């Protein structure tokens, strides 16, 4: 090249003054740059987070500990069945099989089917709700969040005018979402509610997902399910998640539907910033008085 532009002097990494907006989000904003590239410390921090997420995928769930905790909870929450949780297994025999064969993770193995068939002794009287807890792709999500969410949900449902009958909680090892169809059908439950560890993100290795299916039976499409995602203290907290789940459960039972046909109009979310930082921003802009329905953020 003949044309040689002037060499800019090396000024070090360019910091981003808007990094302080991290009070509003866990997103990796304001990372700064060298040229247009990531600074070394941020690049290495990312590599570490990815390494840890990779490790987390393969962590097994401690089912014995969870069973014990749920038994303790059922003593405090009369709505929960006083029968001990049922521990079952999908057809995916181990983690590597689970990762490569989702079809096997969606079905109970034969011993588990027999166990659940024995459990439902009064087939003429269906349960209203079967709560199904599956390890999914993050045992950490279940270990951290399943118990407090179930606690919050049963509090929500406990005082409904039309009482809820709950099947014993089912714990599924190496389970995917649709395994709840098998469980719900075998337990003769009107609604299956699957709590499952979502695939871990770099900043959220413990995100719990929730899937609701009315009239569960093997082979249903995903369009028949309603989903609530990202349940964890830094995401959708237990009280909010339980409120929305209770809304969907009541509507599902009332309308006898779930999935695309069942719209979530709970509208319960107003301000759910995941930090305890300031929620109201005074941007000193007279032209920007929020009008009806205008979102209130620092950008506007």
């Amino acid at each position, binding site marked *: 090249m003949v044309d040689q532009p002037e060499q800019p002097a090396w000024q070090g990494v360019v910091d981003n003054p808007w990094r*302080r*907006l991290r009070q509003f*989000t866990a997103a*990796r904003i304001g990372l700064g740059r060298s040229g247009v590239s990531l600074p070394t410390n941020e690049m290495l*921090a990312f590599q570490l987070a990815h390494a840890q997420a990779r490790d987390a995928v393969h962590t097994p769930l401690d089912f014995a500990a969870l069973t014990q905790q749920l038994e303790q909870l059922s003593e405090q929450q009369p709505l929960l069945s006083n029968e001990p949780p049922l521990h079952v297994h999908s057809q995916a025999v181990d983690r590597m099989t689970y990762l490569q064969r989702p079809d096997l993770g969606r079905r109970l193995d034969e011993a588990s089917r027999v166990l659940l068939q024995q459990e439902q002794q009064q087939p003429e009287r269906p349960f209203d709700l079967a709560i199904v807890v599956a390890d999914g792709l993050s045992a950490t999500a279940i270990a951290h969040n399943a118990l407090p969410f179930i606690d919050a949900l049963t509090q929500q449902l406990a005082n409904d005018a039309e009482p809820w009958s709950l099947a014993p909680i089912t714990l599924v090892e190496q389970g995917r979402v649709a395994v709840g169809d098998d469980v719900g059908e075998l337990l003769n439950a009107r609604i299956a509610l699957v709590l499952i560890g*979502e695939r*871990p993100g770099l900043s959220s290795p413990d995100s719990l997902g929730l899937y609701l299916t009315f009239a569960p039976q093997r082979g249903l499409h995903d369009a028949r399910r309603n989903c609530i*995602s*990202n349940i964890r203290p830094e995401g959708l907290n237990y009280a909010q998640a339980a409120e929305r789940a209770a809304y969907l459960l009541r509507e599902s039972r009332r309308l006898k539907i779930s999935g695309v046909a069942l719209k979530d109009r709970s509208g319960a979310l107003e301000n759910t910033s995941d930090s305890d930082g300031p929620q109201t921003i005074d941007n000193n802009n007279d032209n920007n008085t929020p009008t009806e329905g205008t979102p209130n953020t*620092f950008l506007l």
Partner: protein
Amino acid sequence: MTKPYRYTLGSQTYEFRNLAELMARATPARSGDRLAGVMARSAEERAVAQMTLAEVPLKTFLSEALIPYEKDEITRLIMDDHDAQAFAPIAHLTVGDFRNWLLSDHASPALLQQVRAGITPEMAAAVSKIMRNQDLILVAQKCHVTSAFRNTIGLPKRLSTRLQPNHPTDDMNGIAASILDGLLYGSGDAVIGINPATDNVPQATRLLKLMDEVIQRYDIPTQSCVLTHVTNTLECIEHGAPVDLVFQSIGGTEDTNSSFGFNLATLAEAEAAAQSLGRGTVGNNVMYFETGQGSSLSANAHHGLDQQTCEARAYAVARKFNPLLVNTVVGFIGPEYLFDGKEIIRAGLEDHFCAKLLGLPMGCDVCYTNHAEADQNDMDNLLTLLGAAGCSFVMGIPGSDDIMLNYQTTSFHDALYARRVLGLGAAPEFEAWLERMHIMSNAPAACLSDALPPAFAESLQGLPANSDGSEHDEQEAQHG
């Protein structure tokens, strides 16, 4: 249904029961086809299948439907919309000849555009199976596809970005923070598109209003989208929400789309509803589709086809509705469909090639999940290859980390890397805006300004001064 295909190699005769099986056996190896049980059983069988497929006349795809016409509305769409006149210049070719024709100097961008409507998804899929990665890049680069709403996507030597400011609870300030970060890194000309934490009409409406206000306040030549179910967006439109683009995930079989809860009529209704709002300024392409290999198998709706052929059939759905953007979310679905970086890279190039050949404004979510055998280096490779191939757009997200969807995609930094190393600009209208707002000092060279742009400095003034985000930094460390 159809005749078997045979190929004799030395003393051994290979037989493929029908065209669908031949296509599947000819597909480069990937875990989803193994899962479906349709993959070649040996490397030699795959190579033989490719040689057999190369001898199949393109015309065969017009008479041998891979999924019966009576059973699938996508097959009907493909057959009924086929343009025989556009097909004429290539009607005499086999799949193998077609590869040669596409790579030839004869096949100019203008000629490729002319034959577009004569190419079916299955023809595109078939030829892609006998093309190397460099072939997929070279031909895609010759397929020019532009679309427009408030700016122009897909012009040569341009690479646009979808700004993806997702937040795990749809917090307005959290989303706004990521939007600001993206804009200040020059991202967002394809769309500012939010995946809401859940499908919820009131929440979608709030998010639409937020983005509409931001776009108006800063006069940004771009468009917004909430990636919620098409029926939710239709409700939003009925309630008067400011909808620019209608989103829907689509698949290549009718049963896949049923599992997603829509059909072709739903999309036609949605396109008409969004166009009636007349919100575009330089064009009126109002649809945003996402696709990805494996979705049909995932819904058990693949009819025994390989996943790449199913994917290509989804492009017939997309091109029926004149999209502004189509995005293959290539590594999102997980290792049971695309096992590692090598398979993800191959699939990304295939999807981009097939879509461009069929005339779609194709972008790519260059991405992977934490349970796949892939990392940032694989994404660097795919991004660079797609940039060379003329990919319409990629994602842009803070630090590659989607804290809502829990996967890694390309960052704002990554897009600037690609623009610089390949000499690519943003959409021209957006590029002018970046300089006008003093976000970039030299937008064609992807040079960011060192100083905080005045219009945004004003917005930041009202913020508490000494909140430096240390709380979240600590949380990150604890999660470790």
